[in-house]
């Protein structure tokens, strides 16, 4: 007994010594982030500086790419033998990354405290097949933003609770001549369009896959696309939506050219910033509407996580960095840009102050987050669906036919 304790002590000392020795040698981590939305580049640098101050032996090189380049850059680096230690990944990639051994399984590194403290819905961002491939970092879903002043002028008392109601209100605004096309979406041939589509699929109770096979060609999946097409052809939707990304939607909305817009959390505080926006102080936010008889609200899981690459030579230091970036302290300090993953943060007045309306919408929206399908072939499925959405909007084929060919081209 004594002997084993002594051995353990010696062992611990040795490990400790090993750690100290290791800690003195400077380690350089390479991290890949995205250059838009949620936390800005400056914020990520500030968070990283705080980490570097606390860990002078670890240096972190940051690289920022647009969202559209994040996946391909990660995969390419991996294909050529690595390069990054920490990568930001979207909720749609863990399946593919896990199947191709891009990320380290960190299930055992997650502490009890993390397990209990982080919102259960947030964990789905980093999970595939019962394993965890990182920590959730940006917790996000699409909300319905509305311009209070325009709704008031149109005599509308309450923001819409269903998608049909949204169409009616938009029509009232259009008929009164307040705006030519009151709704703005991000329907460019890109992932952004799939996020809007998924929000509608969740409202109409649709399914992407059933037993691994495409199931979006009928039911809720078809209703969702039909809604988009009707909204577009009836002129209620800004026709330029079909080449908009999220930032375009934000610009249109904060110029006062849209009464309604679907967008991520980050738009709330930017559109309420008088330096940025013409509609500051008039921005309302609610969860995305539901569908009568089917759902109360709708939401897409648009969260992102931080993971360690399988080729990283410094997984320990990388994990330390991820723990810092996802800590409650860091997240609370930057809660104006992205809501924390920690449940108790929502009771903290420092976090909620000045964005009570957003927090109220988040409580309902985050609880309803609908996942995009988890399949290693996600990129292919998404590309096929993007094409289907655009063909239907442009009237090149009916929603039904477009979704059928998307199912055929999905690789599933």
């Amino acid at each position: 007994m004594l002997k084993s304790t002594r051995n353990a002590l010696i062992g611990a000392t040795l490990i400790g010594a090993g750690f100290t020795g290791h800690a003195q040698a400077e380690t350089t981590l390479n991290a890949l982030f995205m250059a838009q939305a949620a936390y800005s580049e400056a914020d990520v640098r500030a968070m990283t500086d705080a980490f570097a101050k606390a860990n002078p032996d670890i240096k972190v090189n940051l690289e920022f790419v647009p969202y559209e380049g994040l996946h391909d850059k990660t995969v390419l680096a991996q294909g050529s033998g690595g390069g990054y230690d920490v990568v930001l990944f979207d909720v749609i990639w863990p399946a593919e990354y896990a199947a191709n051994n891009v990320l380290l399984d960190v299930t055992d590194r997650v502490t009890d405290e993390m397990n209990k403290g982080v919102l259960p819905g947030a964990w789905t961002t980093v999970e595939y097949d019962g394993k965890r491939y990182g920590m959730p970092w940006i917790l996000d879903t699409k909300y319905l933003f509305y311009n209070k002043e325009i709704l008031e002028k149109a005599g509308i008392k309450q923001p819409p609770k269903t998608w049909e109601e949204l169409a009616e209100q938009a029509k009232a605004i259009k008929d009164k001549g307040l705006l030519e096309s009151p709704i703005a979406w991000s329907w460019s041939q890109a992932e952004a369009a799939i996020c809007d589509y998924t929000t509608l699929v969740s409202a109409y109770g649709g399914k992407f896959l059933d037993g691994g096979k495409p199931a979006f060609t009928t039911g809720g999946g078809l209703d969702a696309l039909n809604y988009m097409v009707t909204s577009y052809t009836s002129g209620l939707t800004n026709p330029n939506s079909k080449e908009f990304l999220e930032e375009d939607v934000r610009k249109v909305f904060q110029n006062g050219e849209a009464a309604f817009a679907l967008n991520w959390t980050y738009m709330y505080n930017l559109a309420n910033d008088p330096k940025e926006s013409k509609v500051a102080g008039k921005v309302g936010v609610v969860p995305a509407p539901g569908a009568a008889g089917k759902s109360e609200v709708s939401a897409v899981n648009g969260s992102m996580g931080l993971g360690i690459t399988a080729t990283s030579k410094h997984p320990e230091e990388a994990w330390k960095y991820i723990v810092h970036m996802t800590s409650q302290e860091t997240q609370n300090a930057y809660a104006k840009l992205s809501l924390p993953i920690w449940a108790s943060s929502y009771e903290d007045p420092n976090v909620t102050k000045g964005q009570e309306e957003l927090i109220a919408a988040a409580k309902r929206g985050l609880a309803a987050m609908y996942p995009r399908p988890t399949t290693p072939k996600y990129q292919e499925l998404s590309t096929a669906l993007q094409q289907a959405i655009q063909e239907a909007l442009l009237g090149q084929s009916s929603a039904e036919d477009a979704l059928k060919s998307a199912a055929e081209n999905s690789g599933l």
Partner: protein
Amino acid sequence: MTGTWISTRAWLLMLPLLVVMTAVIGWPLVDTVRLSFTDAKLVGTEGGFVGTANYIKMLGGSNFQRALVTTTWFAVISVAAEMVLGVLAALLLNQQFRGRAALRALMILPWALPTVVNATLWRLIYNPEYGALNAALTQLGLLDSYRSWLGEPGTALAALIVADCWKNFPLVALIALAALQAVPRDITAASLVDGAGPFNRFRFVIMPYLAGPLLVALVLRTIEAFKVFDIIWVMTRGGPANSTRTLSILVYQEAFSFQRAGSGASLALIVTLLVTILAAAYAALLRKAAGAS
């Protein structure tokens, strides 16, 4: 004896180059050929031999055929426009006038800009909400409301071609200008004395000097245009509804977005083969032109 020595020495001198070429071009090419017969993925599995399955799948797919048509349209129209604009600009800049040096320097600017910068700039110009093109056309009364240039299949490819021309015609102009300055002044002077009009002077006096260099520009630009990727990726990512998806975008999606290295390699080789055929056809044309003069 001396001849053999010179020949041996020539080979010896070229040896380092040959080694480097084999390493950076030859080996990857051979490896791509090998890859194209497998179902390898970009990361993870090595992939097994699948014969010509990738080629059959790629060549038979509607995506390939549509992308080939899109690419051909893009290459033919943008290269033709660049050649005409380039020669006109060169003829203009070859005249004596005040500010010529400044104009020459200015003209080269679009070509010197990185393509991504150029593409981002044109995205702003075409922006459907606050773009300069919409503003200009409505103020001139040519358009009654703002249009979505990159969001309509009917205009997206044309909009991309304009952006590509703006970037690349300066190269043609530069090559043509250099050729024009080689035209001896006494010949042009003599043609004036003989009473040749501007068109005949261009056709019979200047054109023989321009033909060779222009053919080189044509080869360079056609091959580049056929491989076009970055300007499209930044401006439309192949949309709307895949109306601007060229062969290179297809290769990129197949190999990198979908991670199918095997079929991506087969597609890349098909594109390489097409470009090689084009280049060979041009080379034959060049030889003929050289022989004729």
